[in-house]
């Protein structure tokens, strides 16, 4: 099992990066403020959970439901304090509905695809489950798999890509929206529809934030954002992707759509 200080450091790095990027990206300040608070909450959930993984059972079946349900009260009150009005309203509704509805929400978040629940429910569910799923995922051997568009460890959908140095180039890893694991996926190919014609796979990047770019597919009109660690080695992929929500707005304006949003709904 991962020593706890490694896991804690990983979360602390995410929190520091969120704090740093709030200054650099004022347009995303509100979202990053919520995200920073959420990351602190998720750190507590991660550090407080010490479940040993059982490799022969699927990751999702091993999620500690009682830990997730106890955590739910925390994320709801956090959303009321830091979230936008619409999210706070949903949080109050769920607080009032009580733990039985939280269990149903979490069951949906673990087993169903994201279109089965609202954006707010997706946020509450993933905020509680991601740290627990990541704790399990980090105990499993890495899978090198370049043909699968869904997470080889938990079946989750990728919410973004990370480019990591590989020789004089960069390998692309997809990052799981559920367990935050990464797996290798080949460059210049659409994970959703399999398109490999380079003319249909544009990369859009902005000078102002060159280390985060949009990788789009003109065949299926879906996209992912990618954080390029070869351009900024200090980036924290989860957080940098979230901070550049302006690129999601740009992509949306140009007819592209994500398959699964990040935790902040972008």
């Amino acid at each position: 099992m991962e020593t706890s200080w490694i896991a804690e450091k990983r979360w602390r790095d995410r929190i520091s990066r969120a704090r740093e990027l709030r200054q650099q990206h004022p347009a995303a300040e509100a979202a990053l403020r919520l995200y920073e608070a959420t990351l602190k909450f998720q750190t507590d959930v991660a550090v407080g959970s010490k479940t040993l993984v059982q490799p022969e059972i699927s990751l999702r079946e091993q999620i500690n439901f009682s830990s997730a349900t106890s955590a739910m009260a925390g994320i709801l009150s956090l959303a009321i304090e830091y979230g936008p009005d619409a999210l706070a309203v949903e949080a109050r509704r769920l607080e009032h509905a009580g733990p039985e509805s939280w269990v149903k929400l979490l069951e949906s978040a673990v087993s169903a695809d994201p279109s089965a629940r609202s954006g707010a429910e997706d946020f509450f569910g993933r905020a509680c489950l991601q740290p627990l799923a990541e704790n399990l995922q980090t105990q499993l051997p890495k899978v090198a798999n370049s043909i699968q568009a869904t997470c080889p460890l938990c079946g989750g959908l990728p919410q973004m890509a990370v480019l990591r140095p590989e020789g004089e180039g960069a390998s692309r890893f997809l990052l799981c929206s559920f367990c935050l694991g990464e797996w290798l996926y080949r460059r210049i190919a659409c994970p959703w529809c399999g398109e490999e014609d380079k003319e249909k796979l544009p990369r859009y990047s902005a000078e102002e934030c060159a280390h985060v770019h949009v990788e789009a597919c003109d065949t299926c009109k879906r996209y992912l954002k990618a954080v390029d660690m070869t351009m900024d080695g200090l980036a924290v992929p989860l957080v940098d992707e979230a901070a550049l929500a302006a690129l999601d707005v740009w992509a949306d304006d140009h007819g592209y759509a994500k398959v699964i949003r990040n935790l902040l709904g972008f």
Partner: protein
Amino acid sequence: MDLSRRAFLKTGVAGTVGLSVLGFDLQPLQAQSSSLKISRTTQTRSTCPYCSVSCGIIIHTIGDGAKNVTPQVVHVEGDPDHPINRGTLCPKGSSLLQDIVNERRLLKPQVRRPGSDHWEDIGWDQAIDEIATRTKTLRDADFIEKDAKGQTVNRWESMAFAGGCTDTNEFNYLVVKSMRAMGVTCLENQARV
């Protein structure tokens, strides 16, 4: 979770009008998005031209895909998915961008005269005339029609031609035809791919 490709539904960025899915005001992000200078690049897998290892590369070209506009090469990197090199490149491969786009590229012929310490510009016509004259003079002096046994060989051994590995097939065809026609036997090209 078993997801077929058909299940990859799309989700937009807006929840209700002007607000994101979680309810954040989209206006500041819209403003930031409008101010970004976005460029569109295409990534093309290719092969390094230099040696027989034939490492994979990815060439990034910038352009909006408009017809009759030559895309500009802006970056060349090792191809991480290529089984031969897995993204690694030697110094020659790493500097391929300079091969394609380089401010210091020679744009006109130059000559350094015997004993001189500098290069001078020379016109194309004059350069071709001087090369042709020297070629003819040297070939007239050194051409071997028959060897010591009286066999017809038609060799010219005091001339060699050195090409480069980035020379194209079309150029190399002309090299072989012209040099062999003159009797040159020493041809080197460094092409290995």
